[in-house]
């Protein structure tokens, strides 16, 4: 294929953009897949999943009986969330560092524009996530054969559903880096928002364990109700909420609901990716 010609600063011809995107994609994918961090995270996620399954087997061995809707849901959730969380932190670090160090400006004077840059990074993360998921799924398959656990269709559906959710989380990380422009700020915001969304999702469950002190003046009850109301909205915004919602829909066999969840997550991923591209262009270029 013939190489593209020289470009104008800040914008790219489609051919240039394709080349740049491809290069960023391949380089980032290689870097992600072969970095010790990714390997350690994938290994840890697999180990956590394995421990969940061993725990189930031990329960059966001790009590003789266990009833599970999907023995792989918890392992898959832990795997998916750990890997996607790691990839998001990795992409935040890369983008924010490129902005902080002025690398982005140099790239934008070169044959790279924000579309190629963000697109390449997104594709790299998606590929790395897909590879990690494929590894994990192979492991689950082998464990199924060894242990006798069922790997039901619903688990495959949850694995499929996790892809748009992970992309949404990664796109959110890119957008956040583009908006803040600073590594510390981007990581801080990401951690804070992630913790907030997790608190909103699991807060009502934890507060349900707290006994009510009074029928009329019970701050815990008010907080529980408030968190529940917030969670109802957050479950359509938070990637964790979307994953939980989708998993529940899959468990109930509610295919339309599961599909809606996947579409919503994809939509968010696209919007945030485009948002990242838009935000990155003015912020990447120093005046």
């Amino acid at each position: 294929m013939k190489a593209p010609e020289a470009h104008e600063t800040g914008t790219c011809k489609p051919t240039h953009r394709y080349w740049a995107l491809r290069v960023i994609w391949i380089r980032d994918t290689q870097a992600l897949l072969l970095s010790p961090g990714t390997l350690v995270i994938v290994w840890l996620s697999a180990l956590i999943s394995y421990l969940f399954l061993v725990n189930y087997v031990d329960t059966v061995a001790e009590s003789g009986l266990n009833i599970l809707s999907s023995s792989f849901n918890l392992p898959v959730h832990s795997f998916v969330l750990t890997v996607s969380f790691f990839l998001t932190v990795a992409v935040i670090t890369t983008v924010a560092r490129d902005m902080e160090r002025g690398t982005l400006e140099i790239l934008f004077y070169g044959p790279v524009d924000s579309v190629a840059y963000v697109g390449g990074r997104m594709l790299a993360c998606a590929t790395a996530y897909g590879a990690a998921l494929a590894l994990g799924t192979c492991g689950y398959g082998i464990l199924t054969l060894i242990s006798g656990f069922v790997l039901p269709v619903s688990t495959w559906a949850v694995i499929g559903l996790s892809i748009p959710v992970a992309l949404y989380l990664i796109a959110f990380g890119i957008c956040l880096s583009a908006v803040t422009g600073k590594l510390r700020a981007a990581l801080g915001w990401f951690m804070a928002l992630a913790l907030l969304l997790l608190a909103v999702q699991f807060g009502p469950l934890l507060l349900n364990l707290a006994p009510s002190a009074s029928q009329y003046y019970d701050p815990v009850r008010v907080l529980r109700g408030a968190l529940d109301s917030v969670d109802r909205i957050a479950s359509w915004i938070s990637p964790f909420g979307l994953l939980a919602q989708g998993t529940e829909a899959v468990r109930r066999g509610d295919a339309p609901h599961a599909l809606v969840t996947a579409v919503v997550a994809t939509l968010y991923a696209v919007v945030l990716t485009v948002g990242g591209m838009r935000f990155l262009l003015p912020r990447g270029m120093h005046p």
Partner: protein
Amino acid sequence: MNLTRRCQACLAGLALLLSLQGLTTPTWAQDPGRTEELVYLVNARLGGAYESSYYTADRNTLYLVADVPSVISLRRTLVYFWPITNQLKADLDALNEQIEGTLVVRQAGRDVAQLDLTAYVIQYAEGKGKSPGQLFVGDEAPAQWERFDTARSAYREAVSQYFQDTLRYRQDLDAAIAANALEDEPSAPPPEPAPFYYSSTPVNRGHVIELPIGTYQIVLQGPNGEPVPGSQKRLVVFPSTGEGVAYSVIPHDRYTFPETSQDAREAIYLRGDAKAYLQPFSQVEYRELYLSRLQDPQSWGGRADRFAWFRLAEIKDAQLVAYRRGREIARIERRPYVVRQITGAALGYEIHDQTTTNLERLQERRPDFYGYALDAAKLPAGTKIQLEDATGHPYPGSQRTVRILDSGQLGWSIVLPTAPFLAVVLIAGARRRRFTRLPREME
């Protein structure tokens, strides 16, 4: 004055002191304050039974299941806060005044129904939980109450007769033993009367309501045509969102700790040598929020975007069929089982098939439960089970996967999570790390 008299005098003085103490010291028994309030008493049909609850003035929404008859009535009663359960309680024994009037049901501003007060009774032929509840309204209500009362009186007479017969039988037996006149086996004792499970509410009056799915407004119009203050409420009439079969799975050695399987997508995992007994129940699914509010109007739990199963009656006329790769491999009959508590250091329970047990004492007992036995040792890998009726039709939602887990094989698989890690490290080490380069013209 002897010692006894002195003691008596001391005791009398002490008693006098204690009684005076009682007069002066305030009593600390807590009496919660009661306030007069209008409450809606609801007999809501849920599954096959009627759930009784009351909605105090602070509850703005009532919940009922769609397309089944329920009964609601407005009462004036005393309401108090009970801190132990953290709930508002209605003291219906102290005050239970029926508010007369017509219940008007509105939807989107127009009247949907006007319901007058009518007499009703709710009865269970075999007791609540064992037979479906029946609602009798209008003229039928007192007639059914009479029927129940007659049956109850007959049972009382039968019990009384039984005690008399038993007493006479024992006296005769004692007399025969005393006279040494007992030559053969004594005659059988008088038979116990059949247990009386038939139950009924007294004849009450209420508004019988049966509405399709929707959100309504209700208000009670008094005899003067004016709405009764405090009677206006929102009414949510909700449908079931699914039907299925729940299994209560009783492990052979843990009779008191059964597990429950509610979903057809669930798998029952058994140890290779385990035995379990399945008791099937029909069940319906509702939105969690509506179900929890219907069962307890003062509950704060439950969400409308989550779902919960509600268990109905036990399924008795079915066979459990086991399949493997689509082929029937076994038909398991419903059998009576009796439970024996193991005495001694081991403790625990043993479950015996009553039809085959050789323990005479267990053969004579009433069965503790009926169920279908699953023996892991006899089941091949990858078995699926489902309930079928007499015509061979499967019960929807009764399918389950049964798997036998072998914990011994999992030990060495600890290497598995590490395998991808090692593989990638080896590949990465073996290969030179190559990055795709930009075309020369672009550099």
